[in-house]
């Protein structure tokens, strides 16, 4: 009987210890050591993902558009330096986005890669620029040129775009297709001198706990 009691004690102790060490210690604690900050490339898909517009899409789309614009004959073979104004992108998708970020990145890519072959106008800064001009004209501040002469440049081209989407949701998951289209419009003739598009489709299915 003593032997059996001893065996029982050993069994119970072993299981209790194992359960305590494995069960109680590890369950209930999420990432006990934490997750170190991970630096990712902007064109890399992160571990926080949805089916919407993400940084890797922005980079892929704007890279393609900048390359495409530079190879357009109207830009590549222009006699002078074409002057471009950015016109806000129209968002028709189900995702609210900072629309300016697309044109900002295309502009910076063009400025960086075109090395001065195109010029952009800061039309979105017009109120501040007009105020400065008025101050100069009134003599309140100094001017390095004749303040009465209009020097604000006119645009040769307008660069604009549109984001459109098709979304589907069913028991099998969520699917989002987004078409990113951009146009370069001749400001004098309204002719669309360049147009290109990029399309991205994503789909996923959330955990059953959320369905």
């Amino acid at each position, binding site marked *: 009987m003593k032997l059996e009691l001893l065996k029982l004690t050993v*069994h119970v102790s072993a*299981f209790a210890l194992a359960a305590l060490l494995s069960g109680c210690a590890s369950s*209930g604690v*999420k990432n006990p050591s934490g997750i170190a900050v991970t630096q990712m490339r902007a064109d890399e898909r992160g571990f926080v993902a949805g089916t919407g517009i993400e940084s890797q899409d922005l980079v892929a789309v704007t890279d393609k558009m900048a390359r495409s614009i530079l190879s357009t004959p109207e830009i590549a073979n222009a006699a002078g330096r074409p002057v471009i104004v950015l016109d806000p992108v129209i*968002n028709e998708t189900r995702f*609210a986005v900072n629309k300016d970020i697309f044109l900002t990145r295309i502009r910076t890519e063009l400025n960086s890669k075109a090395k001065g072959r195109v010029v952009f106008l800061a039309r979105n800064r017009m109120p501040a620029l007009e105020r400065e001009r008025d101050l100069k004209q009134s003599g309140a501040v100094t001017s390095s040129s004749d303040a009465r002469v209009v020097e604000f440049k006119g645009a040769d081209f307008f660069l604009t775009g549109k984001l459109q989407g098709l979304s589907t949701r069913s028991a099998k998951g969520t699917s989002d297709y987004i078409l990113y289209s951009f146009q370069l419009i001749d400001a004098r003739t309204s002719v669309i001198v360049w147009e290109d598009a990029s399309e991205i489709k994503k789909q996923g299915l959330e955990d059953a706990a959320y369905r």
Partner: protein
Amino acid sequence: MKLFPRLASVALCGLLLGCATTSATKSGGGASPRDKDKVLSQYRKAAAALRAHNFEQAKTLLDDAILTISGVPAKDPEARRARGFFNEESSKVYFGEPYERVMAYFYRGVLYWMDGEPDNARACFRNGQFLDSDAQGQQFSGDYALLDYLDGLASAKLGGDGADAWQRARANAKHATPPSYDPQANVLFFLQFGYGPTKFAGGQYGETLVYRDGYSEAYSARITFAGVTHRADIFDDLTFQAHTRGGRVMDKILANKAAFKGTTDALGNASLLSGLVLTQSRDRTAREAGLGLALFGVLNKVVSGATTPRADTRSWDNLPQFLSFAALAVPPGRHNATVEFLDARGQPVARLTRSVILEVVPGRDTVVFLSDR
């Protein structure tokens, strides 16, 4: 006699494991309570901030909440744990039921419009309607009249064609028929009435998610300025939206958990009783078998006790019952307006009347958000 130590070991192990899972439940199944309820807290604070006209705070809170709920949570450890037998559904990170998620997007859309971004507002309204589109059965899928109406209005204002969205809004209208768009309308009144639905757990083990109806004293509103009166009717009813959400996949999982809990409990009772009877036997073998059976019963009772089929009843509890809207053409300048909330008989509820100052600027819409409470 060898049976006894083995059964005892298993029972003890079960007890210990039960303890472990219970503690996991308390600690949110891995996520700290603050983490798993963060979105719920943001929803509630955002709704309160909107009522207090603290729009910047509401924007920040909603943006952060939307950042969480816009993801597709797959292979998520908290969600997996919530599906397990020994963790409550509420151990998962709270996203809210579709009617709650829709409201997060609706409110954010209102704020975008307030900021002069009707296309981003439209994106939010479209997304809200999209989130409602997985209602079980297609009958109540994407049936918010106001979201379609606003989608069309934004499109019309942006130079597009809002006719399709307007037709959908009319088809989905369950209260008053949405009026046709006024291209001159530049003041948008977003009104909300009453107290929205909340959740509670029904069924034998609380495994069924049930909605408690919301209620409202107000059923319409009357907007008066410069001696002219306009009526704002109900477009959507959140209690209806909550009820017509349809069955969830999670409901099946909870039903399975409840069945497992019931079975193990019944088996535990039967084994325990039979075992205890056998332990009274004069035969030593029968007594040993009885002890084993009793321990098996205890083990089943432990497993049953540790099984948690309770539905997640965390609710965004400061939502309204009804959503209303009116778009008016107002000349630029400063105007005083009065908004009266009318009861079901069309009589104003005096204590709910509000005065509003409209600052109408040419070239953009003025957005007014008002709640009756």
